[in-house]
């Protein structure tokens, strides 16, 4: 076995004892935060899309109302035949 394999062994075992649990906690809390963000997007994005969809539909309705009234006027003859 060459000595490259033993490089930093002492510091590694110190890290595993002292620092590693802290780093692990930090990683997990970051991970939880990302998961929370993901859930938030997953929950609200489809609803938002629905809202936008509905808004567009409403828009169409209102434009149709104006349009249809004039259309009706054009279609209806002024004098009964």
């Amino acid at each position, binding site marked *: 076995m*060459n000595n490259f394999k033993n490089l*930093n062994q002492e510091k590694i075992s110190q*890290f595993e004892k002292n620092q*590693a649990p802290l*780093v*692990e906690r930090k990683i997990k809390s970051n991970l939880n935060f990302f998961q929370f963000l993901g859930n938030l997007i997953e929950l609200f994005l489809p609803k938002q899309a629905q809202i936008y969809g509905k808004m567009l539909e409403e828009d169409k309705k209102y434009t149709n109302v104006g349009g249809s009234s004039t259309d009706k006027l054009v279609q209806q003859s002024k004098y009964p035949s």
Partner: protein
Amino acid sequence: MPQQIEIRINQASDEEIVDLYLKTQKDKYFSEIYKRYSGKIFGKCLSFFKEEAEASDAVHDVFMKILVNLSKFGEKSKFSTWVYSITYNYCIDAIRKSKKMTIQSIDNVGEEIDFEDENEDNWLQEVDMAQIEKVMDVLHPHDKAVLLMKYMDDMSIKEICGVMEKTESAIKMKIKRAKQRFRESFVKINHIE
């Protein structure tokens, strides 16, 4: 029952644990991966960053990268090789950013390469640890990475090719040069002292 599961986790291969983690997203599988690799990653980072705090931060960043890309791990290579490739690339990138290091091209494949350097290999393996640490401190990050992959992680040339995204002959050349620079630095350090 929980003890039985513990034993199973301990006995499972890295790839099995990764698979379980991807399927269940359970903390215990991540903890197992972390337990197996945090020390190794820290050791490698410590060879690149002199400060322990920097190496510790690097462990955090490397693990975040591993987690973000875990679904892309396609088992084309061993999990350990994949983890080490993320670690080495992260360290080289971080040093490049901090020092604005210029990267030398190693793609001069046309050069004659003498691969029969077993003597050099034997010599390198007999150097004591304190000397290795001193020499590693002054080596170029690319040279460090290649020597660590070859002598610390026992990676094959093919595996190193995968990590560094270079051809086999380019990697062989890089290893040869790293060994030469290691010897030069070794002589220099011992001459100065």
